[in-house]
C-alpha cells in the first residue's frame, strides 16, 4: 500500500522543453537604440520642459529620459516608438525653421513654444506625439525615486486607515 514506484521519464513532445523557466524581464540597458544622438538630446530637453525642476527635481534628475528609451526599446509595443520618433523629428525641423538651432539647443521658452505647437497639433504628427510623450514623462517621473519620495510623500507602512483624515494635514500627495 505504501511506497512509491519510479517510472522512466515520460516522452517529450518534439522540440518542447519540459522545464519552463519563468521568463525574465529585461531590466538592463536598452537592447536597441531608439533615438539618434540628436533625437535623444531633444527628447531629454523636452522631458524636462514637461516636468521641470522647480522646488523639487525635474525629469532629468529623476532619470526619465533613460526610462523612456528603455521602455520604448524593450517594454512597450514596437509601434509605440513610431509617433514619438516622428514627433521629435517634426519638432526638430520646426526648431530649425523658426529658431535656426537644433531643438535641444533652443531656449526653454522656445522649447515650450515647440511643445505647445505639438500639443495643439500645429506641426505634423504633433498631437500623436504630445499626449503619449507627456504620459511617458509622467509615468517615468512618478515611478522614479525622485517622484515617489521627493515630489510625493512615500508612506511604505501607513499602519492605520483613517477615512476621515483632515485634508489640511496632507503635506504632499501620497505615493500610491
Amino acid at each position, binding site marked *: 500500500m*505504501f511506497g512509491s514506484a519510479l517510472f522512466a521519464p515520460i516522452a517529450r513532445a518534439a522540440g518542447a522543453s519540459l522545464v519552463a523557466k519563468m521568463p525574465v524581464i529585461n531590466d538592463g540597458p536598452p537592447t536597441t537604440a531608439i533615438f539618434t544622438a540628436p533625437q535623444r538630446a531633444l527628447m531629454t530637453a523636452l522631458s524636462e520642459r514637461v516636468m521641470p525642476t522647480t522646488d523639487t527635481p525635474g525629469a532629468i534628475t529623476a532619470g526619465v529620459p533613460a526610462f523612456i528609451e528603455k521602455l520604448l526599446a524593450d517594454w512597450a509595443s514596437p509601434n509605440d516608438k513610431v509617433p514619438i520618433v516622428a514627433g521629435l523629428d517634426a519638432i526638430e525641423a520646426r526648431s530649425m525653421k523658426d529658431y535656426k538651432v537644433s531643438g535641444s539647443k533652443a531656449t526653454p521658452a522656445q522649447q515650450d513654444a515647440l511643445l505647445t505647437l505639438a500639443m495643439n497639433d500645429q506641426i505634423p504628427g504633433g498631437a500623436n506625439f504630445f499626449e503619449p510623450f507627456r504620459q511617458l514623462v509622467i509615468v517615468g517621473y512618478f515611478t522614479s525615486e525622485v517622484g515617489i519620495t521627493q515630489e510625493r510623500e512615500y*508612506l511604505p507602512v501607513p499602519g492605520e486607515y483613517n*477615512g476621515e483624515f483632515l485634508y489640511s494635514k496632507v503635506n504632499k500627495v501620497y505615493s500610491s
Partner: protein
Amino acid sequence: MASTNRFDAIVIGSGVSGGFAAKELTEKGLRVLMLDRGVMVEHQEGYTYDGKPAYEVPARNMMPQSLMQSNYFIAKHGYVAPSNQKFYNDDKANPYDYDEGSPFYWIRPGAVGGKSLIWGRWSFRWAPEDFEANKRDGIDGVWPIGYDDVAPWYSYIEKYIGVSGSRENLPYLPDSDFQPPMPMNIAEKWVKQRLEAKFPGRKLINTRLSNMTQDKPDQNRTKCQFRNQCSNGCSFGAYFSTQAVTLPAARATGKLTLRSDAVVTNLEYDAARKKVTGVRYVDAKTGQAQVVNADLVFLCASAMASTQILMNSRAPGSDKSYFDNSGTLGRYVMDHIFRVGVRGDIPGMEDYIEYGRRPGGVYVPRFRNIGGEEGVGFKRGYGYQGSARREPAKPVGFGASMKEGMRKYGGWKFDMGAFGECLPYADNRVSLNASKLDRFGMPVMRFDVTFRDNELKMMKDARQQGEMMLREAGLLNVSSSESEHVPGDAIHEMGGARMGADPRKSVLNGWSQAHDASNLYVTDGAQMASVSCVNPSLTFMALTARAADHAVKAMRA
C-alpha cells in the same frame, strides 16, 4: 531514515482548499504529502518585491507588452505584474483550448499557495437561500447539504483565519464570526446613508475581507498595515494565504511533506474496491513520473484542474473517467458574470481624505429575487463591490503649472462593479483534447462555456439599477459601462464535478466524497452545484475542513 515515503493522505494542490486540507489532516494525526505543480514560495522570504517601491521592481512594475503577449496573455486578465510574476501561470508553457468565438479565461496560479497568493480576499458566507436555489427554481443540481451543515465550519474557519467585517443581521447575507470591520471612509458613509434611505431593503455595508484588523500572535501574524502590498505577498501575514496560515500550521505538526513542481496527471483506481490506489505526478524539474500511494486522497487542484485530473483518470485505451459513472463530470461549469461598472462623483467633503491604503471597500449585497422570483426577467441576483476615493488631480498641458496642479487631490469619486450568479448548464462543459498533449503528456483542457440569456439579462439589470441607485443617492456625473463578459474572467470558476445526493446525477456526495471512490474527496470549486453571487473561497475552506473531519472519522470508524 525516517519513513518519508509513507503517507496516510495525499493532498493535491495547495491553495485555499489544499492548504486547509493539509492543516486539518496533519492536525488530526495523519502523515500527509501535499503536491503542488507550482514553484516553491516561502512565506516572507519568497515575497521578492513586498514593500518595494516601483523603482526597485523590474520595468517599474509594469508588465512589458511583449511578455504579456507571449507568456501572460491569459494572466493579464487577472492582476499579473512584475512584482508578482512568479505567482502566475505561464500561459505559453501550459496551453488550453477554446473555440475562437467563445473564449474562457482560465487564470491560473504558478506557485505553491495557488490562488491564495493572488486572490481578492473578499469573504462571504453563503446564505441558506443559495443552497436551496436550484431546488426552488426547478434547476437540475439540487444541493445535498444546506446552510446548517456548513455554518459551524464557516465559524471554525473564520475564527482561525481572521475575517474583518460588520455584523448586519441581513436575511440574505449571514454574518461571519468577524474581527472588527475596516472602516468606511466619510464619502462611503454619505453614499450608504442616502442610498439606504432611498431604497428600503437595499444596503451598503463594510467589506468582508480576509485581511485582519486584529493581530494573531499565536500564528505570528500582524494585522493589516494598509500598505496596498497584498498582491506581492504580505510579510505581515495580514491576509489569509496558505503561506501565512495553513502551511505553518501543517508544518508545525511535523507530519507534512510538501513537494512543489509536482504536476499530477491522473489518479489510479481499483474498480473492485472502488478506491483510488495511487496518484501519478511528473516532477517538472526532472521529467520523472512517479506514483505515490496513500489511504486517502484530497483533490484540491482548483475547480478546473481537479476536473482535468479526474477526466484524465481512466483505464488505458478508454476515454471514460473512472469517476464519471454519472456522465456529469466536466459539466455544469460556472463563473460569476461581471464587467458591469457604475460610477459617479460625490459632492462635498473636500476637507477630508483617506490616510492609508485600505484593501477592499464597500459591498451592496444582493437584493433581487430573494425568497423567490420577482418578475424581473431573470433568476437569482448580483451584488456590487465598490469604494470611494480621491485621486491626485490630472491637469492638462505641461510644465511647472501642470506639476503644481498635480499637487492636490480631485474630489471624491465612487465606483462599484457587479458580480452575478451564473446558472448551471449541462452543456457548459470542459473536456480533454486527446489530440493535443501538454509538456507533461496530459491532454489539454478544452472549454465550451458561455454565459446565457439569464446572465446577460441580469447584467443589464445590474447596470440600470446601479446607475439609478447612484443617481438617486445624489451622486453627480453618474455613468456606467459594460464590457465583454467572458467566463473565467471573474476567476470564480466553479463546477465540473458537482455534489449531489444522486450518484446518477453528480460526481460527489454531500461530504465532497466521490460517489465512485470512498477514499477520494474533491473539496475545491469543482464540487459546487451552483455558485451564489458572493465570492466563493470561504465556502471552499469550510467544505474542506468539513470533509477532512468526515474523512478521518470514516478512516477510524
